[in-house]
């Protein structure tokens, strides 16, 4: 039996009204799967699904039928039936069925068309309720290039701003940028200030950190603040690698499908990280670390993927994203995705500053494009792209953001103040 979801009363009413049952199988099944663990969804996701199905529920059935007619036609060609697509069950078997169908490209196109008609309606509501947002993306001091070689893929979209670095700014660069003061002053960071004063959900201000430096600046824990640090998750990561490795060696797991079911059980423990007390975040981190990409192994992949997923799912109002320098990958270690390199090889760990630079040129770009995909961020968001210790930064912002008009170098404290003012803190 498929699990029974416990969605909001709004969604429950729509289910009872038969909204899901009137939709094509692949669409309704997928959506039902998305909401079946309602209690593990972020607030923004819940609101999205309520709006999406609310829109479909209040639309005339004739219009809904017309919207989904092409999808029904493709499903028929694909041979979609309740046998291969049981109502409200969506597993990797269904993903596999879609992927292997010769009509899969057509199916994707038709689904994209449906959303291209639905999204403008949904986006309009979002845009009407637009409010200022702030994204600060930081690169580590160790990168072997100057600001003239940074953010090459998208710097034309914004403006390079010179920073007036004082004598003590090397040491206090991060603190001054994020708190407006030296580290020892222990002032609140921008995400803390926002979470304490304005957070609209328990996950509205995020710090995603490759190391611990930025997380360490946040000394308070107001509701609404999320702190994720790759470094702080080390115990959990190590346990995941060990357990996955054991699973693969000791159990009859034929492939990703079978492994996926086992991985669902590997939640973070309270002794490993404080996020264990928040079921939504705990599941978020589990899924980020076990998504099959390099999030377990590479700090910056974790930072990028966690950020991208937070944008897609939680739509944070403030995000501070801090990349680091990744280690060099050891010979043949690509064979050992679930093995902790630090403990299994005597080859000394070495930082790969040049490789990290190449990686971050792409990952910075991906982070920016991900935010800009959503109406919550378009035309509302100030982006600071900063290299720690660098005397220039990239700013992308709405035209009325004062920094864009700066004629002379700006101090770190002033950058903080402008960001704080933008967020009306």
């Amino acid at each position, binding site marked *: 039996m498929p699990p029974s979801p416990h969605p909001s009363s709004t969604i429950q009413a729509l289910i009872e009204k038969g909204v899901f049952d009137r939709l094509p199988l692949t669409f309704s099944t997928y959506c039902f799967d998305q909401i079946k663990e309602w209690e593990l969804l972020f607030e923004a996701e819940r609101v999205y699904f309520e709006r999406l199905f609310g829109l479909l529920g209040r639309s005339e059935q004739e219009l809904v039928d017309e919207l989904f007619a092409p999808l029904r036609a493709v499903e028929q060609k694909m041979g979609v039936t309740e046998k291969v697509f049981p109502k409200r069950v969506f597993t990797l078997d269904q993903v596999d069925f879609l992927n292997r169908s010769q009509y899969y490209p057509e199916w994707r196109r038709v689904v994209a068309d449906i959303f291209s008609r639905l999204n403008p309606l949904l986006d309009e509501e979002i845009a009407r309720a637009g409010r200022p947002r702030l994204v600060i993306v930081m690169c580590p001091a160790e990168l072997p290039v100057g600001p003239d070689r940074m953010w090459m893929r998208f710097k034309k979209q914004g403006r390079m701003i010179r920073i007036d670095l004082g004598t003590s700014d090397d040491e206090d660069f991060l603190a001054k940028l994020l708190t407006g003061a030296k580290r020892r002053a222990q002032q609140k960071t921008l995400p803390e200030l926002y979470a304490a004063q304005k957070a609209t959900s328990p996950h509205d201000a995020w710090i995603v950190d490759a190391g611990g430096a930025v997380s360490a600046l946040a000394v308070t824990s107001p509701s609404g603040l999320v702190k994720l640090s790759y470094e702080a998750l080390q115990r959990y990561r190590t346990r995941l690698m060990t357990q996955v490795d054991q699973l693969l060696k000791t159990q009859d797991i034929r492939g990703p499908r079978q492994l996926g079911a086992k991985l669902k059980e590997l939640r973070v423990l309270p002794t490993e990280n404080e996020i264990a007390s928040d079921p939504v975040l705990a599941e978020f981190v589990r899924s980020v670390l076990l998504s099959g990409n390099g999030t377990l192994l590479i700090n910056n992949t974790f930072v990028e*993927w966690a950020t991208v997923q937070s944008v897609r799912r939680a739509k944070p109002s403030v995000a501070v994203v801090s990349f680091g320098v990744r280690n060099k990958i050891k010979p043949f270690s690509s064979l050992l995705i679930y093995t902790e390199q630090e403990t*299994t090889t005597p080859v000394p760990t070495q930082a790969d500053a040049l490789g990290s630079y190449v990686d971050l040129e792409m990952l910075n770009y991906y982070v920016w494009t991900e935010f800009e995909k959503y109406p919550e961020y378009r035309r509302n968001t100030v982006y600071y792209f900063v290299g720690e210790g660098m005397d220039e930064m990239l700013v992308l912002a709405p035209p009325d953001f004062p920094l864009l008009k700066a004629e002379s170098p700006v101090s770190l404290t002033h950058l903080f103040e402008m960001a704080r003012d933008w967020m009306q803190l």
Partner: protein
Amino acid sequence: MNKRCFVQLAGLSIAHRILPNWLWARPTAPNHDDKRKVIIVTFGGGVRYSETFAPEGLRNIPALAALQPKGLFFKTCANSGVLSHFNSTASIVTGNWQRVDDFGFQPPASPTLFEYYRKQTGAGPTDAWAIATNKSFSSMGAGSHRDLGLPFGANVVLPKQLLLEAVGEVIRKKPEMGVASRENVLRQLEGILNEGYEGVGWTIFKAGRQLDQSVRNTLTRGLIEYIHGPESPTSGDELTFFITREVMREFGPRLILVNFWDMDVAHWGSYSLYLQAITRTDRLTGMLWEEVQSNPHYKDKTTFLVLPELGRDGDINASNGFLNHRSGDPSCRNVWLLALGAGIQPGQSDRPIQHVDVAATGAAALGARMREIAGTPIREILV
């Protein structure tokens, strides 16, 4: 023992392990005739135009960029099938879009080029090989058609699996020793050789389990020499190159599929590692071409086809750019093919071709004909 000596001995000893016993009832001299040979090299794992033959990508592929003027370059070679590794390469070798299990748990659903070639020409079992870094390719050598199938399939060799098992064993049994210690790895390899090859990748044909002690020692020494030697490998693709070259030298087969795969490290989210892998594959492909040129049994009689197995997602509007390859956008589907070798007129072609055309082309070059396939021979290559 010098390297060349090892190569000869190792090649023969490998053959003992990977070939069926019945084969040894027949003479197995290397195929040194003058007939056309075909080598298909895939940039497995997937690579985008933007990192290869786009103007900004050429710096990642210096070897292929230098070879391009000597070959016929097809600007569009489309993968219209399932964008998974096994299905993509299976489509290349069968000439039909494959929709089997994504992870290699099923053989291709239709016969392969290897089977048609061997059955129709009477070629022996050492005359068709698939050498793959991707360890899920063990069933790439043959489909399951009742008139064809394994008896006519290719020898499938998964070189990386050999080291994977060895390294895994070292970690499991002696975690304090460390995986990168070559001596440890090699001691473990010796252990694996004692246990037989079946579990370490050399498996498609059931090999006899009895291995002469001196042959086993020779192979072990050979691996030691290789890992310690000037070509010491650091990745699976380098091992695949080494094995391919040995197979060419020892058996001279007329048909080889070489699957490089390191660039799939892109899934780890490191763009620099992805670029490094592309450049390494480019270098190894160039070295294979050099081997073709320097080996009298291949020079001037080999059709050498290089193409990506698939592309990867584009940077815009894709799920996560270069990390993945499932979006189905043009960056995933539209790749290229470079044809080099015997009789091929250099140039560039705007005529779109497809992955499924490769098998038909290979068959025609080898004097075979594939039945009921979606692809058609690429006439420009068959001059």
